[in-house]
C-alpha cells in the first residue's frame, strides 16, 4: 500500500508512525495539490467551528431567554434599527444570530453525518464480509436484500421511517429521537454501497494465499475476517466513507428542508435553509444564503477530499 518505511537497514527500530505518515506517497500526493490542501483546511476549519461552537459562537441561538424579538431581520453588518445591535451575518425572524445558528447547525449536521456513515459502514462492512466469505446462499440472500434496498430512493425510505416513528413514538420522545431517526434512515439507505464493495474485495482476498495459510493454522473464521481480511478491504471503504459523509450531510439537509428532519427549535443547516426560504422573496436573503453557502462549501470540500483519496489510493488511476 501507500506507507513507505525508510529502509536504512542499520537502524531497524520501527519507524515512528509520524515519520512514516510524512514520508508516505499519500502525503506527497496530498501536498502537491493546492486544491486538496485548501479543502482539507476548510473541512478542518468547519469541523473545528462546529466542535467548539459553545465557546466560539458569539450568541446562544437556542436559548430563548437570550433572544430579543426586536433584533429580528437584522441585515448582515448593519445596526438594527430598533436596538442598534449589530450581527456579522444578520439575524433571522426571531432575532437569532445567523453565525451562531450556523455554528450550532453545522454541529448537528456533522453529528448526523458521522453517525449515519458510521452506522452504515458498520452494517455494510459486517454484511459484506459475511457475504463475501461465506458465499453460497448467505451471499445470495444478503445481496438480494441489498438489491431491494437499492431500489428504494433514500429520501422515500427516510420519509417512511420518519412517518412510522412519528406515529409510534409520543411527540415529546419524538422530538428527542429525531436525530437518531435521521441517522438510522440515512444509514439504512446507505449501507448497500459498503456491503457491495466489501463483499467484492473479500471475495478476492479470501482466495489469496495468506488467508489460506491462516486457515491452515486453524485460525477460526471470525478471526481471519477481522485480522486478515478486514484491514485489507478497508481502503475502498475509507473512500466511500468520505464521499458518503458529504452525501449524508446533504441528505440530512434535504430531509430537514422538507420538514421531516431536525425541528426548528434546534436547527441543523437544512432546517436553517428551510426557515430562511420563507423570507427570501421579502428581501431577507441572508437568512437562507449563509447556511446554504456553509453547506455547499462543506459538502464540496469533503467531496473533493474523498475524490482525491480515491485516486491516491488507487495506483491504476495515478
Amino acid at each position, binding site marked *: *500500500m501507500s*506507507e513507505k*518505511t525508510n*529502509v536504512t537497514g542499520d537502524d*531497524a*527500530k*520501527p519507524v515512528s508512525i509520524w515519520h512514516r505518515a510524512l514520508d508516505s506517497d499519500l502525503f506527497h500526493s496530498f501536498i502537491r495539490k493546492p486544491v486538496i490542501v485548501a479543502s482539507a483546511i476548510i473541512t478542518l476549519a468547519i469541523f473545528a467551528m462546529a466542535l467548539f461552537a459553545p465557546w466560539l459562537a458569539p450568541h446562544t441561538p437556542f436559548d430563548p431567554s437570550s433572544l430579543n424579538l426586536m433584533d429580528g431581520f437584522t441585515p448582515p453588518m448593519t445596526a438594527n434599527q430598533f436596538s442598534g445591535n449589530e450581527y456579522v451575518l444578520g439575524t433571522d425572524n426571531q432575532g437569532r444570530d445567523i453565525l451562531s445558528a450556523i455554528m450550532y447547525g453545522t454541529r448537528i449536521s456533522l453529528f448526523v453525518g458521522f453517525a449515519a456513515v458510521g452506522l452504515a459502514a458498520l452494517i455494510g462492512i459486517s454484511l459484506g464480509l459475511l457475504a463475501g466469505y461465506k458465499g453460497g446462499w448467505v451471499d445470495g440472500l444478503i445481496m438480494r436484500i441489498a438489491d431491494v434496498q437499492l431500489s428504494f430512493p433514500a429520501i422515500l425510505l427516510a420519509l417512511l421511517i420518519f412517518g412510522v416513528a412519528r406515529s409510534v413514538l409520543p411527540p415529546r420522545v419524538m422530538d428527542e429521537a429525531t436525530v437518531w431517526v435521521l441517522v438510522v434512515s440515512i444509514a439504512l439507505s446507505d449501507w448497500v454501497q459498503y456491503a457491495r464493495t466489501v463483499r467484492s474485495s473479500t471475495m478476492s482476498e479470501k482466495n*489469496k*494465499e*495468506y488467508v*489460506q*495459510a*491462516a*486457515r*491452515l*493454522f*486453524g*485460525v477460526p473464521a471470525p478471526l481471519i475476517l477481522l485480522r*486478515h481480511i478486514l*484491514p*485489507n478491504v478497508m481502503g475502498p471503504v475509507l473512500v466511500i466513507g468520505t464521499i458518503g459523509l458529504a452525501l449524508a450531510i446533504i441528505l440530512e439537509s434535504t430531509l430537514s428542508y422538507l420538514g421531516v428532519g431536525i425541528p426548528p427549535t434546534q436547527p441543523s443547516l437544512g432546517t436553517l435553509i428551510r426557515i430562511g426560504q420563507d423570507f427570501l422573496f421579502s428581501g431577507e436573503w441572508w437568512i437562507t444564503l449563509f447556511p446554504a453557502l456553509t453547506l455547499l462549501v462543506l459538502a464540496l470540500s469533503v467531496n473533493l477530499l474523498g475524490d482525491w483519496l480515491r485516486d491516491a489510493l488507487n495506483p491504476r488511476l495515478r
Partner: protein
Amino acid sequence: MSQQPLLKVDNLTRRFDVSKPWLNRMIEREPKQILTAVNQVSFEVEKGKSFALVGESGSGKSTIAKMVVNLLNPSSGHIYFDGQELSQAKGAAFKSLRRRVQMIFQDPFASLNPRWRVGDIIAEPIYAFGLESDKLKVQKTVERLLSTVGLTGRDRYKFPHEFSGGQRQRIAIARALSANPEFLVCDEPTSALDVSVQAQILNLMQDLQDEFNLTYLFISHDMSVVKHMADTIGVLYLGGLVEVNDSQQLFNQPVHPYTRMLLDAIPDHEMTGRRRTPVTGEIPNPINPPSGCPFHPRCQYANDRCKQEVPRSKAVMNSTVACFAAEEGRF
C-alpha cells in the same frame, strides 16, 4: 521397507462441480458438468525423504497439495498421516495433525499479509497452535527462525513489501517452520522466483530438511528443480499418476511416453545435440477426458487398446507405470 510411510495417499479423487447455476441448466437442458481434477492417485512418502509431483498446468498438482494439508476435502479416497486418517481425526488429534503438516505456497507476494509485520506473520502459527504464549519467548523464537532462513532478527519489524521475492519466500518458510512441522508441502515454491534465487531457496530447503529431519511433498512443473530436490518422483497427467519411480531411475530411464516427453523438454546448456521428440498437443479438457488412456491422443505408441481401456499402475521395467505400451513392450 519395514517402516511405515509418514504420508500415505490412497486412491485419492477430487471432483469439482463446474456446472452452470441450476436455473440456467434447467432452461438450457444441460446436464451437470463434473471436472475430475485428481483421479485415483496413490503414493507414499517415507520419513525424511522428498517426494515430488510433476506435471503440466491443470494436471491436479495443487489440488493434491491442498487435500494433503486439508484445505480441501477429497471426494473419495484416503490420506493417512503417520497412520492416522486425516478426515477422521477430530479435536486435539486433528489440531496436532494440522500442526505437523505445513505448507509453503507458490506466490510469496500473496502468501504474506501485506498489512502485518514480519514478526507477527511468523508468530501467527505459534499462537494459533498454542505452542507458546509468552511474548518474549515468541519473539526469541521468531528471531531464531529468521536467522535460520538467512534473514536477521531485526527484520521482524518490517513489512513484507520491503523484501524481495526470495526474501519473502524465506519468511514464508520461517512461518511454516514456526509450527514445528514434520512434513512440508511445497507447492511450486520457486516458480515465482528468479532463477538465481531459486537455487538459493532450494539449497535452503535442503539444509532445513537435514537440520529438522523434514519430509517434503514437493510440487513443481520444472523437471530440473525436481531433479535437484526429490528422492522419488511421481508424474501426473490429467489428474492421474502415470509413472512413479526413484528420481535417478526416472531421469536415466523414463518409461512412460509422457515422462519421456517431459524429460526431452528440459533445456540443456551443453547443446548435446541429442534428438528430441518435440512436445506435441495439449493437455485435454478434464471435463471431457479422452476415452481409455488419457494420454493416447498425444502418444506415438498408442493403439486401439489404449483408446478403449484405462491402464492401471503396474511394475514394469524397474518402474511403476500406467501404460499398455510399456506392459506389452511396444517401444
